[in-house]
């Protein structure tokens, strides 16, 4: 089972807020326009974004994604971190770009599926 912690290790993601590292990742989504993410990200997704506004935490809560990964080394606003802490949302960071992160997440998910099958 691919968990947030496992993905962190594999992709060398830095924890910003990690209230539930055992949360299972079942998919992925990338996007910065929150009006789009709200309607398209799915429960259990690892959501990759460069948007740092506090509404990221609200959208993460609404969509119930497994974690938010801030790409390109962007740092979330302090209000975003506070809100995530309040609502138990996993926030991670990486200096890698969105494209690279999405590729690595896909790879990790496929490898995990493969492991589970064998």
């Amino acid at each position, binding site marked *: 089972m691919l968990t947030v912690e496992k993905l962190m290790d594999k992709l060398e993601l830095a924890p910003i807020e990690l209230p539930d590292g055992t949360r299972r990742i079942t998919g992925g989504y990338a996007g910065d*326009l*929150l009006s789009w993410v709200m309607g398209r990200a799915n429960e259990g997704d690892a959501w990759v974004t460069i948007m740092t506004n506090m509404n990221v935490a609200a959208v993460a809560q609404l969509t119930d994604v497994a974690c938010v990964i801030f790409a390109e080394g962007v740092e979330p*606003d302090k209000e975003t971190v506070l809100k995530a802490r309040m609502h138990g949302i996993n926030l991670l960071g990486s200096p890698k770009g969105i494209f690279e992160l999405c590729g690595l997440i896909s790879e990790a998910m496929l490898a995990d599926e493969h492991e589970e099958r064998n």
Partner: protein
Amino acid sequence: MALFTYDLHVHSCLSPCGDDDMTPCNIAGMAMIAGVKIVALTDHNSCKNCEAFFMACEDYGITPVAGCELTTSEEIHMVCLFEGLKQAMAFDKTIQPYRMPLKNRVEIFGSQPIMGRDDEIIGEEPWFLPAATSLSLNEAAELVRSMGGLAYPAHIDRESNGLLAILGTFPDEPVFELCEVRDKENAQKLAGGRRVVVSSDAHRLTDFAVTLNHIELDCEPDSPPEIIRKALFKKLS
């Protein structure tokens, strides 16, 4: 008390996307012909045509307002208005270090001329003006307010660079009691009880004053511009 026609979001030729005909004198002249009494010049991330615009408005009996349309780091467009020209120019200076040093490519984006009193070109802005600044929405609103200005999200009824499209909803912070729509019809369902300013976001002379919007202010119709501006800021603050 009197009713005033207004448009608080107009671009001049300084904005690369603004038509070359949108010179300070032409905007002031067009405002007079169309019957718009209060006009704010809000170029992308720059107030540098406001000085010429103020002079042009004097000739045409228009009440000018100085400001700009700031692009935040989230790429949200925010209208920033100042009661005085000096304040706006100080703000213009303050935001310089937050701008992205991306060279304007005239052949792709259009020119960014800084205009003089009689519509003569006195300079050219070298950096591409509409690019995102490094100021977040929160930081930008705080900065404008700390310098005595008024800040509110532009065209929340537009997909590109509108606050609602980018953030989904109004964030808890910064608090906006005011917001702008382009189409009055959208005001009720999008503004969430906030007071609404309707403005054109005109980039061409023909976009300007297509419909007239009115605001009631606590001054006389023929009050001098500084009195009308004072009443306007009192009403919007």
